[in-house]
């Protein structure tokens, strides 16, 4: 055998060896690209847990492995300033009460909380449409959006979320915020309709201060989130439907300078009850864990 031929054999052998080593070395990341976070077996187990506790999955699950990070946000004062300006032009009477500013004009009262939450109350309501409770959702949405546009209450990045009908006959339309193409469930606009009249609008909107890719981490799977939710809520006597499960961001309202909000899996039960599972820790998010004064 000549030297040239030996070299060729060795080159082929070493190419093979390097491919083998490279595959094993980078397998977790290759695996990440090719595999899924939720296997068919995990799906079956989760559905069984849900069924045993009287929950039924109607939503489709995102089965890909996903990563996310914290967002640093603060409440935006832009909308508050716009509304305040409009009300002052109308000659509003301004009062202060427990840290909130209250602007009162004929037929309209606006409460500006220091946390950033704005509540606009229409004393006798603003007429929307006859028999509004029986309108098609698209038609109702269109009328409501026309109203909030006219009143200059439409914030940027608003997306319709869901409609809640109460036993008393009132309707609440929920909108959430989209920031940088990400759903922010903490940012919310609520329109309350009673007896064909818009009675109140509530706005809590956030602005993005910083996105922290330095802490990017893998999020828990949707099935793990569902299992944790069932563990947190416990079994049900009546069947409950899981209509949606989406990855977004959520936190409570803070009267703070700025704060970080974590990614969450939002689970919508029976079309209107929302629960938030922290997508990093798997904990059921509560409104406020801020330390309280000791008993």
């Amino acid at each position, binding site marked *: 055998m000549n030297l040239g031929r030996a*070299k060729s054999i060795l080159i082929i052998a*070493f190419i093979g060896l390097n491919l083998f080593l490279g595959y094993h070395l980078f397998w977790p990341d290759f695996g990440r690209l090719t595999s899924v976070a939720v296997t068919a077996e995990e799906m079956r187990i989760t559905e069984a847990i849900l069924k045993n506790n009287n929950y039924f999955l109607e939503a489709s699950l995102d089965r890909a492995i996903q*990563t996310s990070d914290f967002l640093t946000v603060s409440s935006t004062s832009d909308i508050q300033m716009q509304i305040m300006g409009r009300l002052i032009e109308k000659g509003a009477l301004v009062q202060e009460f427990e840290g909130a500013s209250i602007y009162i004009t004929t037929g309209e009262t606006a409460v500006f909380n220091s946390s950033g939450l704005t509540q606009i109350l229409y004393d006798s309501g603003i007429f929307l449409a006859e028999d509004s409770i029986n309108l098609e959702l698209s038609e109702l949405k269109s009328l409501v959006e026309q109203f909030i546009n006219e009143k200059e209450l439409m914030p940027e990045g608003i997306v319709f979320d869901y409609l809640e009908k109460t036993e008393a006959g009132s309707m609440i339309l929920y909108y959430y915020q989209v920031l940088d193409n990400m759903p922010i469930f903490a940012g919310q606009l609520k329109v309350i309709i009673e007896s064909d009249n818009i009675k109140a609008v509530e706005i809590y909107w956030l602005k993005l201060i910083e996105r922290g890719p330095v*802490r990017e981490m*893998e999020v828990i799977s949707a099935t793990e989130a569902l299992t944790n939710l069932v563990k947190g809520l416990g079994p049900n006597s009546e069947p409950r439907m899981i209509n949606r499960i989406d990855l977004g961001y959520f936190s409570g309202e803070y009267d703070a300078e700025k704060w970080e909000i974590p990614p969450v899996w939002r689970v919508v039960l029976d079309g209107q009850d929302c629960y938030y599972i922290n997508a990093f820790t798997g904990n059921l998010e509560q409104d406020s*864990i801020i330390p*309280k*004064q000791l008993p």
Partner: protein
Amino acid sequence: MIERIKSILLLFLVSLSLFLTYQLWYGQKPTHLITEDVYERVIAEKPRLLVDIITPAQIIVGTERGHYVLKEGNPDFHSLWGALSQQLQNMKQESVIDGNVSMEGFRNLLVVYFKPVLPVGSDSPWLASAPYSMINQIQLSSQDSDLWLTLSDSDSDSTAKLLIPPDKKELFLQLMAELSSEERILYTVLTADRISGLTNRELEIRASVFVPEEPVYMDILILKPEIVDRDLILKTFFIDYNLARIIEEKDGGLIYTDGERGLRLTNVGLEYSYPRLEEGQATSSYPDALANSSNLISYHGGWPAGLRLEELGLIRQGRTAYYMAEWKMFYQGFPLYVNKPTRALFNDRGLTHYTRALFSVGGILTGGEEKLPVAGWASALKAAIKIFNAEQPGTESVLRLEAMELGYVLTGSAVAFRGEPVWFIKINNYKFYLKADSLDWLSEEEML
């Protein structure tokens, strides 16, 4: 030429295979994608042992001149308690003298009061071979040439007498002689006779209250808050603090929360809360709870000198139960009263609430000639009763004096903290803080 290229390629492939083998062997982790989940207990300092957790509430020393009162931070307090504690650790059940001991010729040398109580017997380093009991008072007495210890059980009126071995007597006699030779302020015990005529309302004394008989002068203190190592304290509460999000408050405070527990750090201390653990039971024994309290304060910030465990109690609320431990700072025998005490609530599931705001003395605002003359105890008591009558008109006719002592309260502003000398008086569970010189009432709103 082709052979040369083959050689270079082969050399490259061999080198690459060596590099990849090295990487594979020593492991390369995509750490930027996977959170670090290695659990490592991070602590501020090692917890204290049981013998160092409890110190007496006060030691009353009887001398020929009168009584001296020693408290945490007083010179000689720790040497006296240390000697007594060591003696109790060395004694066995056999040292307890059964039967009646004649009290004839007994002379009290000192009385040591415990709050929280001292666990003695099995599971405790003190008198380890004796049956378990909780002691609230120890007396050291002399009779002829013997020295006796009398231990009073907090749950019953029973007492146990122990004879100090002759070879250990000298140590105590020497300590007593040293104490007697030093100039100190004399104290007197308040009795019904001493307070009669002070007020037109009936007044009962419900505790061993010792007050100064001689003029006392105190300083206004400059206090400085404890500097908390934020990074370290964060690690002691959150196993993986990458998962904790930060909330910046408008007043500069920082809140860290992982959605289940929250930690607020301010410029003067911290507050921690883990509400999910509140629904729990507290089944640990009193000595175990003492050890737990030491673990908690040591892990989460440390146990500095001058800080004393003031209270440890089991609290039952509905179906839940928890222990509450509270600490207080002392300066030269005087306690520092603050509005938000350093306190931990814990049960079998763990720490549910914790507040910590500790201040140390950074200097003296008044000194030398400018020291404040403290109003006498009789004037202070009368002033407190007057405020009580004005604030609580029509309450029960019998007043109960539950505590009375000199101390400091934290006042000032968020950037300049002061320790103001006060008389602390507790009547019918109402606490009064009166400025030590003027006897002006300092309400809790005025305290920081």
